[in-house]
């Protein structure tokens, strides 16, 4: 029996359940506390900073020689904007850290910060695309006079003729409002200086510890060996904790300057104001269709409000360029004209959030399919049948190559599971009683596990992608796996232990996975972009296979058998066809202590390296809702997911990723919105204003699996971290639109809050009783 495929309870959990987790705030004991003094204004020139007579306060002027955070894209259309660690000349978004106060406790640091007065000459802020792109708009940054930081354009030859000869053109203007990834644990870091070595250790709640080390030491102009970055238990990240933030540079600078230990644990308000936002996008598309519903061509104008800065290391290209490249999704058409812009404004920086661009582009394609179906008089499922890709590898008009997937089959399975005719009957019956039920379908692709071959195409100054793993079996037969990925809730340690167990023949509890410490793990890229099980898993598997090979060699030698006849399982090496067996710990001991007998290098120590081109997971979501026409409230009645992520290593963990992702997608679809007022004040600075869903808003999902094996993944697993979030908004919002179809209203903005739904109904072309 294999360990892969079992819902093994997670090895991570006992400590977390007992309150013995180890999060960044738990490291703050004995530290001086740091509070950042932040700009109350969205834009303005810094005229002066008054510090109190006593107390430790530092400003940008003190940070002599500290360079800005300046991520690079090698594209001619990219405008590199440096983010000063603490600005001295001007502020460009509300909440930007300008000074830092240090005191014995967090409360005293806050008291001290209150005595710092930042005098700012205000400038009228530019907050949205329209203001930023206006002909006479002021430049947010002098480096980008037109307020466009990155722009992609493409037009396939033959586009215009195809559109001109099409049967119908369907237009959509969609908007995703600004949102927050909102990990439950906010950001934080504890930096301590070691007098003995002169090194600093930064314990921080981050997803990419090695990258952070590179970024911070680049800003400070010190070698990487002077800094150790540790990601302890991390209370959720979802992309928000990928980027380098100025606060971390300041912490390391302070630890060196004060030759001591400093801690910064942000509060929720800071997290909302000044960590990273996401999803602020406006897409205008026109789809050209044949009479039978075939999508022939797509034209798209895509705008992303990337905020005041470009996020490090992935840059502000992450949203607009992914939208540019992956808008076609799982649909087959060859003519594409697209313009995608990353627009800078006086708002918080936008950075990756689970799904990156794809929740919006899936919303777009799935709304387009529904709208076209309605316009052409075709069933919404039929129009997808006509257009989904079924031949692989498929090459999209932007050159993205899709490996084998089950787009159509997954949709058929979901449709069959839901029983749409039965739903339509219920819907009709409900309508007779004035109740509005709706059903929404969403089919999508989730590109996962891509390494440098894909990232290199984005022309990033820093090209992430590969993973390395060092695996050691100690003399007692236990395994330690040191990985460059940096999991934070995904259960990766358990999944990797299952992979290792199947190769080397020890139980998963004997496999210890070490992550998130730049002193203890090989350089790697951390955990993001649904990559870890594919890439870190692949590297782990390769290392485990090498270790197993060595174990078999040792066993063959000691039991005088042939290597091919040795099987490693249940803690033993067994010789096939005989009853000869040796416990694996004995082999391990021999490897270290009897190496002279074995005629091979001592020990069991192997490395794995993996850098794949990536693979596509796919799924279909179907959601049923009831909309309360009086209140505009939406209740999710049913949610079905058919997921194809290849081989599932731990079904419970995979389903957990889907369920968590869908919950976030529901929040994105219906509730969550970051709102600035006209002066640039962020109005949503507490969890009473920003509304992630609770247990009352998220239903139990019905999850079904399909298994398409990809040659692009050595573990045969595909990533599954983002799919829930990618697909759910489209399914929910298509369902809302379907529920409200008697009113002839359109659902063009997410989140579709009660207020927006009520406004749409009020302004409906068709009255409620029609």
């Amino acid at each position, binding site marked *: 029996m294999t360990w892969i495929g079992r819902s093994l309870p997670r090895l991570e959990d006992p400590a977390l*359940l*007992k309150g013995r987790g180890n999060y960044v705030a738990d490291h703050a004991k004995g530290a001086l506390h740091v509070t950042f003094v932040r700009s109350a204004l969205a834009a303005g020139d810094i005229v002066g900073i008054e510090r109190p007579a006593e107390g430790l306060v530092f400003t940008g002027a003190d940070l002599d020689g500290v360079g800005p955070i300046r991520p690079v894209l090698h594209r001619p259309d990219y405008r590199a904007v440096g983010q000063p660690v603490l600005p001295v000349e001007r502020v460009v978004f509300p909440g930007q850290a300008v000074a830092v106060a240090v005191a014995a406790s967090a409360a005293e640091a806050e008291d001290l910060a209150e005595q710092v007065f930042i005098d700012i000459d205000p400038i009228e802020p530019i907050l949205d695309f329209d203001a930023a792109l206006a002909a006479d708009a002021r430049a947010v940054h002098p480096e980008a006079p037109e307020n466009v930081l990155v722009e992609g354009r493409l037009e396939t030859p033959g586009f215009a003729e195809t559109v001109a000869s099409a049967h119908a053109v369907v237009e959509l203007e969609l908007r995703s409002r600004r949102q927050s990834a909102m990990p439950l644990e906010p950001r934080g870091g504890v930096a301590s200086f070691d007098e003995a070595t002169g090194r600093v250790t930064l314990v921080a709640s981050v997803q990419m510890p090695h990258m952070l080390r590179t970024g911070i030491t680049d800003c400070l102009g010190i070698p990487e060996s002077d800094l150790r970055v540790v990601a302890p238990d991390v209370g959720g990240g979802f992309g928000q904790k990928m980027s380098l933030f100025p606060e971390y540079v300041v912490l390391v600078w302070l630890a060196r300057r004060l030759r001591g230990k400093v801690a910064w644990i942000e509060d929720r308000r800071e997290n909302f104001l000044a960590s990273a936002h996401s999803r602020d996008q406006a897409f205008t598309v026109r789809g050209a269709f044949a009479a039978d519903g075939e999508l022939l061509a797509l034209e798209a104008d895509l705008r992303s409000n990337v905020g005041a800065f470009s996020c490090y290391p992935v840059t502000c290209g992450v949203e607009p360029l992914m939208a540019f490249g992956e808008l076609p999704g799982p649909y087959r058409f060859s003519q594409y004209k697209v313009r995608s812009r990353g627009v800078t404004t006086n708002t918080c920086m936008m950075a990756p959030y689970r799904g990156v661009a794809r929740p919006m582009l899936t919303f777009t394609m799935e709304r387009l399919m529904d709208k076209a179906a309605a316009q052409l008089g075709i069933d919404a499922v039929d129009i997808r049948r006509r257009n989904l890709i079924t031949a692989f590898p498929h090459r999209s008009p932007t050159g993205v190559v899709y490996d084998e997937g089950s787009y159509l089959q997954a949709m058929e399975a979901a449709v069959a599971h839901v029983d749409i005719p039965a739903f339509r009957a219920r819907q009709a019956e409900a309508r007779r009683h004035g109740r509005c039920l709706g059903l929404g379908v969403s089919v999508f692709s989730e590109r996962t596990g891509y390494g440098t071959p894909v990232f290199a195409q984005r022309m990033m100054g820093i090209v992430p992608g590969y993973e390395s793993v060092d695996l050691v079996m100690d003399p007692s037969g236990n395994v330690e796996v040191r990985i460059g990925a940096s999991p934070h809730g995904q259960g990766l340690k358990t999944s990797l232990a299952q992979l290792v167990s199947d190769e080397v023949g020890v139980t998963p509890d004997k496999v210890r996975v070490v992550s998130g410490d730049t002193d203890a793990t090989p350089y790697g890229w951390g955990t993001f972009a649904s990559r870890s099980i594919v890439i870190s898993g692949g590297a782990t598997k390769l290392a485990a296979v090498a270790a197993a090979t060595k174990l078999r060699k040792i066993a063959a030698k000691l039991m005088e058998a042939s290597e091919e006849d040795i099987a490693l399982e249940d803690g033993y090496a067994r010789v096939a066809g005989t009853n000869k067996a040796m416990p694996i710990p004995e082999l391990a001991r021999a490897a270290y202590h009897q190496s002279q007998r074995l005629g091979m290098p001592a020990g069991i120590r192997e490395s794995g390296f993996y850098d794949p081109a990536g693979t596509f997971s796919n799924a279909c979501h179907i959601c049923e809702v009831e909309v309360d026409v009086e209140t505009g409230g939406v209740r999710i009645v049913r949610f079905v997911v058919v997921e194809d992520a290849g081989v599932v290593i731990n079904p419970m963990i995979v389903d957990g990723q889907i369920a968590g992702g869908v919950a976030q997608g529901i929040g994105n679809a219906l509730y969550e919105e970051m709102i600035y007022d006209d002066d640039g004040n962020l109005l949503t600075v507490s969890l009473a204003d920003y509304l992630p869903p*609770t247990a009352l808003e998220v239903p139990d999902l019905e999850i079904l699996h399909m298994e398409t094996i990809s040659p692009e993944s050595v573990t045969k697993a595909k990533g599954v971290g983002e799919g829930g979030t990618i697909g759910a908004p489209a399914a929910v919002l298509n369902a809302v639109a379907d529920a409200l179809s008697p009113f002839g209203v359109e659902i063009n903005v997410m989140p579709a809050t009660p207020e927006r739904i009520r406004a749409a109904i009020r302004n409906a072309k068709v009255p409620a009783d029609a």
Partner: protein
Amino acid sequence: MPDKIAITLDVNGKSYDVNVEPRRSLADVLREDCGLTGTHLGCEHGVCGACTVLVDGRPVRACLMFGVQAEGKAIRTVEGLADGDVLHPLQKAFWENHGLQCGFCTPGFLMLAVGALEENPAMSEAELRDVLSSNLCRCTGYQNIVKAVRLAADEMRARRA
């Protein structure tokens, strides 16, 4: 800096003599003065519930209560749930049913559920969801939390019977 006050807190049946500022929240006192870092802070304004502990048997937001207000009361935190390596039925159910991912919300959910189930172990599914909607989890999508609490409730009822 305001003067500190000497108080004695009864946490998980053990007494802690601490010297705290009157403005310090119970959560901060537990974490920083008692060294019990299992109680987490996700918002510090009473919404997320990550800081939930039991005070005289009832779930309380430890970020909304001052440490000095808790003197003389019986406080229970996540650290007091397990008996050594033997997990409380709720902890066990969370483990077996994948009721946690990052684990940051977990202590709060556990204490919320312990308090609720000790008061009424026979809650309906709807009541249970309603109670559990007091706290936020950003990772799990809740369904495994609800399932774990339901199963633990069954077990706790069986044990009492």
